[in-house]
């Protein structure tokens, strides 16, 4: 039976919990794979190598760098899960700031910290087979990717805009019909357009789509009354580093 390992780097654990949240499918998953390393679920750890590694979180320490290389070495297929692992996460806000200054404000004894100046995605350090975007990831994409790896096919992980999914599920466009600020036109699909489905704009948690047009998107947002600074801040969240080009942070 194929073995599954789940790994955590700098992250909130929400994406790996998406696997535990697969309530209806969890027993089927457990029937198909040996859960060899998944500390959120069990303290029992089986030795590698592993057929499928799901990696959550970003690289923020030098120890992380050594560890992700070891994990890559013992993983046949490595899939990163979530905005931290695929884009550096919200903690990548540090990448354009002074980490020493941050640390001095937040921590009583900053000298105890051993941290890198940047938060970087896993793919900046090792080869990654597939990336599941999102904050958090989409449960359907997670299950489809596990199923795909098990039978040796490619998972369906589109890179086009969220708009495709809005129209496929017949959402009314919140930009055109309501004048809402929405990052859907420049954001990667995969969430099934859940925010526009309840009448609010996309806030870009899947990161940029394949060919985002920053200036055109900025014009859209300006119409809603957003200033240049508002627009830059809109992009500075879970995928701040991936959206840097659109936010004018590069």
């Amino acid at each position, binding site marked *: 039976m194929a073995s599954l390992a789940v790994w955590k780097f700098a992250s909130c654990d929400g994406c790996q919990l998406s696997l535990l949240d697969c309530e209806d*499918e969890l027993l*089927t*998953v457990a*029937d*198909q794979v040996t859960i060899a390393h998944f500390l959120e679920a069990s303290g029992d750890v089986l030795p590698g190598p592993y057929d499928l590694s799901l990696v959550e979180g970003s690289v923020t320490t030098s120890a992380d760098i050594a560890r992700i290389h070891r994990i890559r070495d013992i993983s046949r297929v490595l899939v990163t899960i979530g905005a931290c692992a695929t884009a550096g996460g919200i903690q990548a806000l540090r990448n354009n700031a002074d980490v020493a200054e941050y640390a001095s404000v937040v921590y009583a004894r900053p000298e105890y910290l051993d941290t890198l100046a940047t938060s970087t995605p896993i793919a900046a350090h090792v080869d990654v087979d597939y990336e599941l975007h999102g904050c958090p990831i989409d449960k359907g994409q997670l*299950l*489809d990717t*596990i*199923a*795909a790896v*098990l*039978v040796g*096919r490619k998972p*369906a992980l*589109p*890179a*086009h*805009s969220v*708009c*495709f999914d809005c*129209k*496929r*599920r*017949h*959402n*009314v*466009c919140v*930009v*055109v*019909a*309501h*004048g809402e600020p*929405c990052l*859907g*036109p*420049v954001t990667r699909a995969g969430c099934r357009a859940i925010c526009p489905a309840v*009448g609010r704009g996309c806030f870009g948690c899947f990161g940029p*789509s*394949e*060919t*985002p*047009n920053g*200036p*055109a*998107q900025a*014009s*859209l947002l300006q119409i809603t009354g957003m200033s240049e600074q508002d627009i830059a801040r809109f992009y500075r969240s879970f995928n701040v580093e991936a959206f840097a080009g659109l936010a004018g942070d590069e």
Partner: protein
Amino acid sequence: MVMTMVDAVGDKGMTMPDAGLTPFTDGPARLIDMDGLRRLVDVLRDRGYTIIAPTVRDGAVMLAEIDAADALPHGVRAETEAGTYRLRHGHDDAVFAHCAGPQSVKDFLHPSRARLWSADRTGDGAVTTTGPDRPAKRLAFLGVHPCDVAALAVLDRVLAGPEHPDPVYTARRDGTFLITAECTEPSATCFCTSMGTGPAATRGFDLALTEVLDGGHRFLARGGSPAGAEVLAELPSRPARPADASAAATAVAAADAAITRRMPAESLPDLIRAGRESPHWDDVASRCLACGNCTLVCPTCFCTTTEDVTDLTGEHAERWRVWDSCFSLDFSYMHGGPVRVSTQSRYRQWISHKLGTWHEQFGTSGCVGCGRCIAWCPAGIDITREAAELAAPRAGNEPA
């Protein structure tokens, strides 16, 4: 019932054709009121149809299954401009006075997701397969504007042509009942008069209604097929007086006059061919988000991709067909990479097919002038303006 009607859009390159104001003359026109319209829904339901009609949802006119005519939008107008759409409620009881929302009959006949087949491995290692899902319902469309009737004729050519009929489409299209509502309230993004598809209904329907508000809320009704005439005969109605017919014609003529957006009045295939290397593509691409909305709301864009899925056991597999768009990179992905990397090339591909090569491929224009791609483009890119920009240097370069 109107399955053979595939030529509602002319095929001569769209040079400002006749707007088709000649009334349909097969059988005398009748007059029905709101009660007659309510009865129409009942009659169709009794005949086993699922009735799809405009309704209001989330601030737009959306198509949905209705049980009664009261579910239609009452007194709703849609105000559109490039990139904006707003509903206005209020001042009368008109039920068909709203221009194109984001949906069209395409959404039901060529669904955004359709299972093409599924396969199961049985215990002895054999594989059983099932074909496309069959529709459970026979559909009646109520209140389809003439531009969308024309779009249906285009889809019929593409998806129900004799060479490669598409089983998903034809299974849904066969036996549909189509009630058109002549357009009496076009919006600023409409340009059907340039494409020869409206605002009057001339063919391709089972029943045509013209909503009249002047002198009392009523509908001029005409059968367009034997089935339509049969249904009409079941409704409480009275013969239309000349004054009624004239009021209906006036309403449609007013709509015709109100449509001011225009496609360039020249052969669009020639225009597109000549514009292949135009610098204007750079200008469009600077505004275009490549988000795909124009193609997804277009009532004739039919492109799809397929997704293969397996379940976790690997014993069950399905192939799904999903709406795609020529604006995605994957759409032109060949071995090694996508062919249309730039947004310039993707926009050019779309408009070239829609206005140009569609003629060669299907003997008709791909554009019916509904204006959806203009209103529902978040960036407000306007196909008529882009075509005019392509035409401008040509006009300027012509020898005196």
